[in-house]
């Protein structure tokens, strides 16, 4: 059993969108259903203004509001702490989408079911390949791994950068941001 999580270093992000493209390719997604979304934050004033690009996705919250409201049990957390969707149980009521503070969920127009970032569990568990959003990033923004393993790269980066979740401890998110 692991407790998978990710660190996203927005100070390195150039906003190229490679992570989203790789994700859509790997997960066979329509262009209308991005699992990775981008927010832009402007800070400062000219001539010292700066633009920060913040990629966001399912935060695999330990206190997941989507799972709390899902009436059919389609959303569940697996033993590795990854919030999953059983598409065979989803009725497409979109209650989870309304409950998710990160707006991380999208409707798959082909099935009407709701979908979101899967932390690409299969490849991660095989140990063969990381989630492609991690490997496709040209700037090394993303680090993925087991938060419970102190020797994992993600734990080391987390300890070194003191990265924090986007909304504090509101939902016990397992994605941490360097801002």
């Amino acid at each position, binding site marked *: 059993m692991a407790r998978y999580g990710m660190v996203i270093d927005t100070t390195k992000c150039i906003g190229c969108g490679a992570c989203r493209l790789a994700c859509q390719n790997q997960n066979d997604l329509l262009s209308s259903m991005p699992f990775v979304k981008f927010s832009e934050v402007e800070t400062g004033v000219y001539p010292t203004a700066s633009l920060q690009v913040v990629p966001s996705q399912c935060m695999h919250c330990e206190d997941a*509001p989507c799972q709390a409201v*899902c009436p059919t049990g*389609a959303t569940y957390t697996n033993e590795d702490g990854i919030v999953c969707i059983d598409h065979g149980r989803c009725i497409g009521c979109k209650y989870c989408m*309304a*409950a998710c*503070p990160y707006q991380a969920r999208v409707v798959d127009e082909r099935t*009407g079911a709701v979908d979101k970032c899967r932390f690409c569990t299969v490849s991660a568990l095989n140990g063969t390949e990381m989630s492609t959003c991690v490997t496709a990033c040209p700037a090394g923004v993303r680090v993925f791994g087991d938060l419970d393993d102190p020797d994992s790269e993600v734990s080391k980066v987390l300890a070194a950068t003191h990265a924090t979740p986007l909304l504090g401890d509101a939902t016990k998110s397992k994605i941490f941001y360097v801002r």
Partner: protein
Amino acid sequence: MSFEPVWGAPIAWYLFLAGLGGGAFITSAFLRWKHPEAHGMRFAGHIIAPVVVIIGLFLLMFDAEAGLHNPLRFALLLHNPCSVMTWGVVFLAAFVIIALITLLLDCLKKQVPVWLEIAGSVFAVCVGAYTGALLGVCQTFPLWNNALLPILFLVSAVSTGMSSVLLVGGLKFPKEFDSVGVLKKFHYCFPIIELVLVASLCFITSYNSVAGFESVMSLVCGNWAVLFWLGFIVVGLVAPTAVETWLLFISKPGFEETPKAHYIGAAADAGVLIGGFLLRFLIVVAALPVALV
């Protein structure tokens, strides 16, 4: 990141129709208690209650596309007892069953047991309040995530339910309509209470967060302002209240019982129904999520 409302008009119609059905059932129970002679209007309420709720449930199922393609999945709706939607399914199922039994007994000219009407009214209140709680538990949207919403939706539910029964009464059963004074006075109060609740909701929400402020601003002076002020506030609340004030307290004695007054009253009731739908629609589409970054 741009934001698209999660739900749209079908869900707004569902929230409206569920409340309307519950309100119509409560109105019928009220008529039995205070105006037992108004059989026609009671029967009208008993027809409206299950019919509109069932139409609303079909809308809900059409909106839930993955379930529509695989209807057996709807059986899973009772899986999570912590979900407000699961409570809603229980309340709606109990209410529709009771409302249909009541209608059947009415059609067979059999006396509806008092306990059944009381149980139906309790579930009707649950349905009305649940529609507000369904949205209310979503912390993402400050316009929804407050304790006022279930009360506002319940008040609107009873108000629209009474309006629907009075509308049919005024046009189909004018004699009965003229005799239900207590119902009319209760009905008169609801849009006024609703106005206070909406003002409170807007005022408090605009202070609780940026997203709350922007949601309220989109209603009062933004994208939705025309629909909010003209459709909901004027047509749905103020005009019906003004018309009812005139009919109940100002117009000449006897005028209230003329066909002309019935048509004017029916227009006011139709206004309340339009306002009831617009309330749900505006609350659903105007809610903005809390900022992520």
